């Protein structure tokens, strides 16, 4: 699977709206490493295609890792950043940053605002499902829907209050990698690295928490601390993804399930393989999104992931009903 990553990255370089012959692409790749003069092909391959490939890979990896953590931590197979409304929270924070013009102070306010929004949504959803008693699958997802809807209205409000930023918000929130480049990779990477480190450090605790909070405490886990650490880590991953790509659903839901089927439930390998799988999945979803329409038009990649993710969601729901 690890070999699939460089292969995917390489293969994906050959897809794009601007027609380039295979030779030109290979020449451009060689040129990238040898530092030759800038050519048009080099600029297209490096600055447009490669940057986007990297960004979609990292976003997919972040979403899938956070989905895996949410599912394990809340012991809920339907949990992921999208269904829990945490993506919406991050989007809302970022929309606020765009709408109020904070981004004028630098693009780096975007992931910060997204992080704030993600945490706010997380607290809201968890508090709501606490009210109804438990973190059962339906009550959590219901909470996620309520929060998503509420925040969606809030985003609409921000848009209508600030006419000038509407285009920027709409363009950004759609769930797309169109027009994103290396600067966005740099923007998300620190948050992604921090979140990833946090959840990997707490992977053993995540495993033990599958016993339930009480039994986890009885073998010595500081349950409160471990939970908060894992939620913060998963929230950072979500915010990192959303702050560069808007809302992309289903990657975080689907990938950890597939990985569990293949390699089992142990958290550390689950997180690592989810990262690889999520990255590859979103990378190819994005290739599809930018090549499936003719005349250089693009689909938002969120549309592609929803098209295959929706049926999968139903499948999990049905399987849970039978169990």
């Amino acid at each position, binding site marked *: 699977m690890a070999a699939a990553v460089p292969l995917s990255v390489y293969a994906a370089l050959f897809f794009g709206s601007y027609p380039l012959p295979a030779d030109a692409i290979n020449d451009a790749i060689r040129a990238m490493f040898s530092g030759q003069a800038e050519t048009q092909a080099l600029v297209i391959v490096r600055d447009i295609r490669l940057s986007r490939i990297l960004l979609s890979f990292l976003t997919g990896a972040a979403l899938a890792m956070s989905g895996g953590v949410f599912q394990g931590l809340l012991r809920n197979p339907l949990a992921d950043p999208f269904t829990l409304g945490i993506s919406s929270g991050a989007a809302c924070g970022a929309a606020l940053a765009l709408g109020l013009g904070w981004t004028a102070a630098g693009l780096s306010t975007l992931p910060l605002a997204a992080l704030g929004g993600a945490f706010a949504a997380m607290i809201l959803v968890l508090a709501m499902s606490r009210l109804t008693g438990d973190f059962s699958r339906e009550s959590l997802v219901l909470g996620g829907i309520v929060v998503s809807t509420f925040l969606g209205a809030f985003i609409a409000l921000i848009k209508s209050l600030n006419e000038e930023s509407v285009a920027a918000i709409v363009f950004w929130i759609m769930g797309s990698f169109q027009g994103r480049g290396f600067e966005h990779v740099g923007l998300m990477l620190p948050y992604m690295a921090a979140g990833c480190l946090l959840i990997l*450090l707490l992977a*053993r605790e995540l*495993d033990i928490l599958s016993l339930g*909070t009480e039994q986890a*405490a*009885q*073998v*010595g886990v*500081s349950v409160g601390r471990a939970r908060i650490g894992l939620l913060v880590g998963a929230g950072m991953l979500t915010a990192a993804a959303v702050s560069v790509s808007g809302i992309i659903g289903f990657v975080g839901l689907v990938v950890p399930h597939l990985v569990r089927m293949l390699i089992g*439930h142990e958290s550390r390998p689950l997180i690592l393989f989810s990262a690889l799988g999520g990255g590859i999945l979103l990378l190819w979803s994005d290739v599809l999104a930018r090549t499936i329409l003719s005349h250089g038009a693009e689909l938002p990649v969120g549309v592609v992931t929803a098209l295959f993710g929706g049926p999968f969601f139903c499948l999990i729901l049905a399987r849970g009903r039978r169990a």
Partner: protein
Amino acid sequence: MSAPMIEITDLTAGYKGVPVLRGITLTIQAGEFTGVLGPNGSGKTTLIRALSGVLKTDSGTIRIAGRDISEMSAKTRARHCATVAQNNPGLSGVRALSLVLMGRYPYVSFLGGYSRQDHACVHEAMTETSCLHLGHRRAEALSGGELQRVITAKALAQDTSLLLLDEAASNLDVARTMDLYELLKAKNASGLTVLTVAHDLNLAAIYCQRLVFLKNGSVAADGPTREIFTSQTLSEIYETPLAVAEHPITGAPQAYLVPRA
């Protein structure tokens, strides 16, 4: 003289402000094998939860090996006291070996992995509970009795001087129940302090040296099994007539239900 293994002083604890345990005072010495008995709702499980540190107490103190458990970290507590709980949550996907290895959590450092010694402990615990052959199986593929043995192995792997059990035999058939109690007896003989909640009066009377009866959240009776396991005490506590006779082989007191005339 060293501190008692368990020292409970005027303990009140419960759920959402409603006390279940009301003013329990109880001392258990190291090396005792104690059974906690009592009717439904008398607070047996609550006592185990409070002792294992997962239920906040309303007032009173619990000391284990001389130290107040509310001042211990979860890890320290888990090095002193292991618990075999009543219900095992819907575990899935976890392999039995990984489950038992979780019992070694209190001994690993934050960044470290499980050591060779941890694996040796796990191997020993799984041998003792005869579940070594189940190691590679996933939890959902285990029968109730097999899972119970794995969970017991996890508690033994914690390598504590105190073991708490809450109805650990409730899913087990007769032979498995005897296996479990024989194991507890052997571990007790080699120094483990055992405190077990039991439903089966007669089983408890055979294996436990001391019995503590709870009723309505208080200690209703407490003492050596042979002294306290009498027809009068049992009938009063369970509010139904019970006769007591000697076990034909071991001589332990055994209770018999008496139909209400």
